[in-house]
């Protein structure tokens, strides 16, 4: 079991690294279409989002529908930081790194304060309330105006003019129009590093004392309490780490866009990430990575289908669902491709 787990983890790192090297060399030699080039950073963003949501949904077993909210907080706080520091820090890489830290910390803070009341709920109720919080975050950020002039920062939740700035003032966050002109620091390399860091944190957390406690709570809350595990603490830990990673992904996303608006982080985004997690397999980290990649690229590849695009996309989703979950198909897969699995089992015995 130990050996198998290690091998699966190494396989995950290996696949991600190999994919990065292939794509990067294709990009450098110019054999990548501009469409694919434009997708590289979003793929990284969605992989990190899917892996971090899998920590909550698959490992701790709680359904959260507000993941886009944490991504939103991270995106705005990170982009805000970069805009403020644009002239102070000139190195794009360093600026992005610090912005991600800021985004992750702010999102973690929101994860914590939302988690404290919300994690008392279970199942459907938790799902609904996280959905509500995701929307609240989006709508609040939608009406925030922040500007800066000689006197310092100005803040308003009404409109741009009530900021009361000196004529030389600069609007940083402009309500529904969001943040424009964030330095475009996001690179494929930065995305790749963020994925590796995320995988490192999530995979190591799962295979530790804390991960065991989190999974024990998932399997039986009552039994976990009966052996002295503090349920609230571990649920909160899981939720906060997940929010922080989503925040870092949001920051990366923001640094890839000329204009960042809060309306992008709506319910659909949360559901999209949840689809990655479900199709990749609950608790299966490598599955999340693959599903996020395929399902981000697929809609773009299907563009030639015009009106039928979303129809075909849905059919492919259903086919993937059947391939991953149907007992008959699983049996068929075991019969034809089971050699690898069987070898594992022999080793375990």
């Amino acid at each position, binding site marked *: *079991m130990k050996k198998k787990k290690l091998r699966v983890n190494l396989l995950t790192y290996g696949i991600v690294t190999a994919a990065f090297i292939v794509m990067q060399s294709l990009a450098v030699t110019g054999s990548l279409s501009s469409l694919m080039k434009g997708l590289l950073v979003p793929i990284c963003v969605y992989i990190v989002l899917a892996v971090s949501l899998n920590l909550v949904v698959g490992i701790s077993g709680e359904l959260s529908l507000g993941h886009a909210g944490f991504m939103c907080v991270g995106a705005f706080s990170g982009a805000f930081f970069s805009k403020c520091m644009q002239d102070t820090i000139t190195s794009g890489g360093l600026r992005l790194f610090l912005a991600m830290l800021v985004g992750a910390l702010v999102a973690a803070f929101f994860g914590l304060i939302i988690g404290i009341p919300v994690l008392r709920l279970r199942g459907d109720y938790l799902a609904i309330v996280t959905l509500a919080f995701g929307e609240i975050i989006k709508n609040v950020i939608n009406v925030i105006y922040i500007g800066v002039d000689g006197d310092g920062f100005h803040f308003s939740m009404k409109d741009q003019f009530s900021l009361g700035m000196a004529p030389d003032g600069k609007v940083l966050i402009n309500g529904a129009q969001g943040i424009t002109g964030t330095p475009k620091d996001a690179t494929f390399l930065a995305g790749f590093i963020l994925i590796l860091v995320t995988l*490192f*944190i999530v995979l*190591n*957390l799962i295979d*530790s*004392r*804390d*991960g*065991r*406690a989190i*999974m*024990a709570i*998932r*399997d*039986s809350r*009552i*039994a*976990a*309490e*009966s*052996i*002295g*595990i*503090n*349920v609230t603490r571990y649920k909160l*830990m899981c939720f906060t780490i997940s929010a922080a990673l989503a925040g870092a992904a949001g920051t990366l996303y923001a640094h890839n866009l000329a204009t960042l608006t809060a309306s992008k982080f709506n319910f659909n985004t949360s559901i999209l990430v949840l689809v990655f997690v479900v199709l990749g397999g609950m608790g299966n980290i490598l599955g999340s990575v693959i599903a996020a990649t395929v399902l981000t690229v697929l809609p773009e590849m299907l563009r030639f289908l015009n009106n039928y695009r979303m129809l075909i996309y849905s059919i492919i989703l259903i086919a993937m669902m059947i391939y991953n979950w149907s007992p008959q198909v699983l049996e068929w897969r075991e019969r034809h491709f089971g050699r690898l699995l069987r070898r594992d089992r022999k080793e*375990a*015995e």
Partner: protein
Amino acid sequence: MSSMLEVNNLGISFGGLRAVNEFSMTVEKGELYGLIGPNGAGKTTVFNLLTGVYRPDTGKVVLDGKDITGMRTAAVSRAGIARTFQNIRLFGKMPVLDNVKAGLHNHYGYSTPAGILRLPSYRKQEKRMDEKAMELLKVFDLEKDAEKTAGGLPYGKQRRLEIARALATEPKLLLLDEPAAGMNPKETQELMDMIRFVRKEFDMTILLIEHDMRLVSGICERLTVLNFGEILAQGSTQEVLTHPEVITAYLGE
């Protein structure tokens, strides 16, 4: 010598129903004590009151001289009570070994960053946990199943694993909720031997709920009989089992 467990005048109501009323008992150190009674008598409710799943309306619970009344379940566990469940509650998707290691949670620790960064304290403590957990699995003849998923084990092994997990928390008092439920006579006999063995090997005080009269009369020294949430009889096994009221209420004539 003070008692291991002293329960005084414990009571709880659910709505209009008085589920447990004026429940008192004393379990001495090293004793094997039985709690019996017909279905719905409130036996499991007593366990839930002792372990903090429910908070009592009245009464007091003292474990080894420490008042644990109204503590939360996790705190009760840390104070020294471990339990098993009537309908087995394992961590079904986790390996057998990890079930026991989860039980070791509060005795072997390292910080979260140490776990994520794989610092030396992680390796050292994980190794100690592996050793300790394997030791426990060996005692319960489960070491060959260490890598298997707990939910896939046969019934008897699941029961044993649950006891192993409970003992991993290094309790002072072990509560067993109908350990022989669903077992055939041969398995029940093996279970009795195992309970005796656990008591001796771990120097454990055990309080068990049971339906199976053979098991109760075979290993318990003292009994409390519950009926409709109230104590019907209390005393040595021989006394209680010949008590006329117990015979009418529980054993049938």
